[in-house]
């Protein structure tokens, strides 16, 4: 009992309860199924809020840890070890926050096999919580791989026309990365004698050369997940084919698992390798930023455009992480959240209009602002936040990241940040293009098209507004008053950076 | 050049010839008979290597029982030579090449690397006699002996299962 009642354990495994309940509800009771799932995720969100209240922001270390010996026989030293600190708490909250929203968005979008859908969704949440909370490499890997399975089904069963292709591609790509990480994890477990992250960090003492190899192995897994250029090929397919809720979670949380992995493992376990690799990673990040922006501008499919914009945004996150200074890292963490909110919201909105029009081709849209004023205005705010307009969340992240990268003593060159700042211009280009093509200009053919099918395009309904308003609130909040968020992460970030700086000095 | 070596050479030639005959004769029956001849010569080798008991077993079990069984089956299934087949043209040459390599390896091992060096001293009395073998068999090798009995039982069951005709067929 005491085991279950730990906040983090409860937080991680509560969705399982929902799963069990769902199993006993007949598949044709769609609304009951939906409500069950929604309530479960809402309670999970509640638990995460409870965790937040228990969380002591001034403590840089892991907190609320639940630690038990798990497999300590036959030379294994594997623990059940959950913990939370400034690096992860925001992502945890983001996850619990986005999941109910996504479920709400499926209310009318998912009509068949609702039961399976909700099952997989709750399992997915379980996996994601585990990834962000696990402090033991073995446990982490289990959750990490486990998230693949539900997502694979979500894309493969409820996805678009080429869903199978996208699903398998998603699975194989992600797995391709993680198996190398598996070997690295084993190496650590064998040679360091423990899988527990804190112990490994404390032990340290891996020679730089080996560090570099392990760093690469871990990076392979995370870089594909992020995805960093040029490993992004799976992302557009997955996003375009996935159902709306899937895209939201995929963009909102799953990609963050990659960046979080870099933050949690690569930077802490292999500081010297991180310092060595920083320029390379920064270069890739910058390429990703500009490349993603340029490519998304050329897309004819709205969802694809948003997908590529993720490549660009996460480029910023990576750049911030590998600035390896407080501004960069904090900015990166915040930007993870921002991207989750903005891009998540964008996918939601695209999904909402897609539900009515069943097409995502730019060319049929236009002048929608007149037809759907509320929708247009909401979309505008979200788009601007994703464009990094000051006063909205996107700016705070991007600015701090660029500021950090610009003066990073590890990259020691302003060029990375300067080129990345070009991405800010390009972002404006493709975002405004999106907004213009959908909402401005003469009325698009789709309006008539929809009319032909009897019902005119309607503006957002109450449920849809309820789905996006929470996101909007945070978009403004983080934009205007991000202090609370920074306070949550500051001590942990300072600790992390301190470690990295000592490593950097050791290199010299 | 003593008598034993001479005998060895002659017998060896016979054995190999018989084996080759078995291999290349078109008719199954000839193959079987060549094999019997080969087994016979091997039995003589056993005697030379003072293993009279094994030699006897060889003649009775192998050359006797087993080959007779073979001949029965051959008669049962007909002895006609198989028509030449088109399949696997590269099989035969490849096989022969491999065999040559295998033998080359063996020869290299035996006569250049001199593995299994060591001469065979003069014949020793009271060795390899039936009672000697028998003692060993039932004293030290009881378990294997029992296992072989079970093995034969299994074989019997298997043979029956495979060949018995259910009623109604």
């Amino acid at each position: 009992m005491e085991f279950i009642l730990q906040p983090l354990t409860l937080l991680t495994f509560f969705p399982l309860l929902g799963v069990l309940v769902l199993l006993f509800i007949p598949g044709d009771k769609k609304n009951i199924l939906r409500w069950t799932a929604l309530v479960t995720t809402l309670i999970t969100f509640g638990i995460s809020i409870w965790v937040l209240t228990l969380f002591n922001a001034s403590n840089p270390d892991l907190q609320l840890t639940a630690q038990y010996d798990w497999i300590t026989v036959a030379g294994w030293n594997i623990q059940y070890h959950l913990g939370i600190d400034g690096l992860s708490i925001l992502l945890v909250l983001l996850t619990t926050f986005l999941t109910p929203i996504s479920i709400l968005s499926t209310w009318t979008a998912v009509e068949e096999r609702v039961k399976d859908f909700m099952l997989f969704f709750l399992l997915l949440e379980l996996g994601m919580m585990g990834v962000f909370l696990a402090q033991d490499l073995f446990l982490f890997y289990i959750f990490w791989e486990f998230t693949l399975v539900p997502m694979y089904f979500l894309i493969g069963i409820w996805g678009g026309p080429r869903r199978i292709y996208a699903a398998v591609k998603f699975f194989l790509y992600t797995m391709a990365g993680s198996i190398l990480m598996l070997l690295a994890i084993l190496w650590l477990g064998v040679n360091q004698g423990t899988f527990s992250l804190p112990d490994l960090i404390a032990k340290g003492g891996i020679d730089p050369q080996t560090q570099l190899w392990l760093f690469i192995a871990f990076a392979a897994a995370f870089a594909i997940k992020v995805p960093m250029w040029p490993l992004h090929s799976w992302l557009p397919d997955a996003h375009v084919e996935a159902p709306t809720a899937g895209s939201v979670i995929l963009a909102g949380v799953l990609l963050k698992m990659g960046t979080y992995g870099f933050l949690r493992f690569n930077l802490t376990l292999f500081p010297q390798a991180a310092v060595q690799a920083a320029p390379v990673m920064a270069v890739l990040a910058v390429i990703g930023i500009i490349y993603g922006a340029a490519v998304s501008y050329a897309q004819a499919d709205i969802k694809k455009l948003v997908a590529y914009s993720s490549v660009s945004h996460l480029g910023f996150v990576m750049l911030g992480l590998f600035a390896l200074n407080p501004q960069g890292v904090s900015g990166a963490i915040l930007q993870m959240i921002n991207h989750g909110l903005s891009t998540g919201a964008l996918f939601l909105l695209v999904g909402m209009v897609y539900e009515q029009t069943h097409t995502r081709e730019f060319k049929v849209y236009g002048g929608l602002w007149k037809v759907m004023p509320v929708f247009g205005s909401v979309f505008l705010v979200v788009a601007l936040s994703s464009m990094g307009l000051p006063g909205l969340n996107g700016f705070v992240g991007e600015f701090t990241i660029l500021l950090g990268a610009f003066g990073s003593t590890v990259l020691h060159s302003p060029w990375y940040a300067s080129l990345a700042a070009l991405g800010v211009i390009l972002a404006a280009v493709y975002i405004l293009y999106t907004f213009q093509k959908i909402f401005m200009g003469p009325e698009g053919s789709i309006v008539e098209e929809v009319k032909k099918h009897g019902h005119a395009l309607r503006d957002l309904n109450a449920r849809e507004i309820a789905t996006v308003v929470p996101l909007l609130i945070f978009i403004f909040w983080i934009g205007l008053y991000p202090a609370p968020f920074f306070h949550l992460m500051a001590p942990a970030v300072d600790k992390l950076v301190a470690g990295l700086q000592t490593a950097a000095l050791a290199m010299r | 050049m003593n008598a034993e070596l001479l005998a060895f050479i002659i017998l060896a030639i016979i054995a190999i010839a018989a084996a080759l005959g078995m291999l290349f004769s078109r008719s199954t029956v000839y193959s079987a008979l060549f094999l019997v001849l080969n087994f016979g010569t091997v039995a003589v080798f056993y005697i030379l290597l003072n293993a009279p008991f094994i030699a006897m077993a060889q003649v009775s079990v192998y050359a006797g029982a087993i080959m007779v069984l073979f001949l029965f089956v051959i008669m049962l299934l007909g002895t006609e030579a198989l028509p030449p087949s088109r399949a696997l043209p590269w099989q035969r040459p490849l096989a022969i090449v491999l065999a040559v390599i295998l033998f080359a390896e063996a020869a290299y091992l035996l006569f250049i690397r001199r593995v299994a060096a060591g001469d065979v001293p003069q014949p020793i009395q009271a060795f390899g006699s039936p009672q000697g073998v028998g003692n060993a068999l039932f004293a030290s090798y009881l378990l294997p002996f029992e296992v072989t009995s079970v093995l034969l039982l299994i074989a019997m069951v298997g043979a029956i299962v495979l060949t018995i005709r259910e009623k109604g067929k």
Partner: protein
Amino acid sequence: MPPLNFSLILPLVTLTIWACLLLLLDLFIRSKDITALLAAVGLAVSLGMTISQIGSSGSGFNNMVVLDGFSIFVDALLLAAGLLGVALAHGYLKRTGIERGEYYTLLLFSISGMMLMAQAADLIIVFLALEMLSIPLYVLSAFARPRLESEEAGLKYFLLGAFSTGFVVYGIALVFGATGSTSLSAIVRAAASGSSNGLLLTIGSALILVGLGFKVAAVPFHMWTPDVYQGAPSSVTAFMAAGAKIAGFAALLRVFALAFPSLASNLTPVIAVLSALTMIVGNVIAIAQTNIKRLLAYSSIAHAGYILMAFVPYGQSNVVSTSVAAGLFYLVSYVLTNFGAWAVVIALERSEGRGLEISDYGGLGRKYPALAAAMTVFMLSLTGIPPTLGFVGKFYLFRAAIQGQFYLLAVIGVLTSLISAYYYLRVVVTMYMREGDPQTTSEPWLNITWGLAALLTVIVSLVPQYLFAWASAAVLKLF
């Protein structure tokens, strides 16, 4: 006259005798269900005895057989596999009209042979056990006569098996020639004292390796596997895939880890290459399969490669214990998953081998969610995705490889398991994402088999420590 302490091989003896009795009883039993039941009882009894042996150890019969943690573990595993084999068979035989009592007798005989193999401490016993487990399998493969596929499978298996036996015998002869004995302990002593002939010993052991490699279907001695697995009755295949592998690896571990550690420097590269080849070839050719039985056949080849990987560093005294434990653990996970998968196959198989194409699995997820879920678990486990036993098993195997510092081999291992993900996923894709109207048969024992297997595959993967402990306690002993 040395002491004959039968207690060492009590389960084995019991099982053999039980088999003989069953042979007689069967003549008077009309309903073969009872025969099956009796067979199961025999296995259960023997299993009980095996478990009661835990902790005890010793050697006997002039040091021909040993009893140690290793043999007990393997025996238990074999008997469990036997039980599953019976559970699978009894409905299936009836359905396909090949129900004969001898099936179970031969099954029991084969298992006793495997158990003997696990306990063998003398090459003579190894050889005899090899025959004792193989001959019933030859017969069982052809059991579905007069179905030509079955007979063909039987004959192929037999001819090639006998052929490989020839190598084993010759290998043993050379080992004997090198050391003057066939007893493992004597061989070790000879090898250690240097009175042996190293090269001859190496060649001999290599030939033995070939023979055993054939049994576990290691490339390039694997060619029989797909044909036999496909042709043989599914229940036989299921058992063969598990049992023969267990016995073969038991012998490999026993003989090489105990008798030939001195040859590691020579043999390790060979085994490493075999392992790599097996993983690659098995997984790659599997991609092209459309028949589920062949698919599983190639998958079993691939898994032989993985287990070989754990076996590669057998020569390093600090790793060998991990090696053995990892191998055993993986065998357990493989047996469980394998039987589960085959149970599903049998559930979908219909007469004249219909329902064996992967395409026949379309729509399973919609129509039979439970069955599909179970199959998904098995596929994930074979791929090595958590939370399944297969993942934990692979984790353990790779650990052995990494401890032995065979990093390249480990990388090949993970990459091939990535390839495997693709064809295992294809089954899942078909079940959930393609339409179809599959027919299944639901038999209580069958359902129990796959249900249980699926549950265990997941649950044990979450609490593997007990299995870990047991496997790592199953050390090889030498007397």
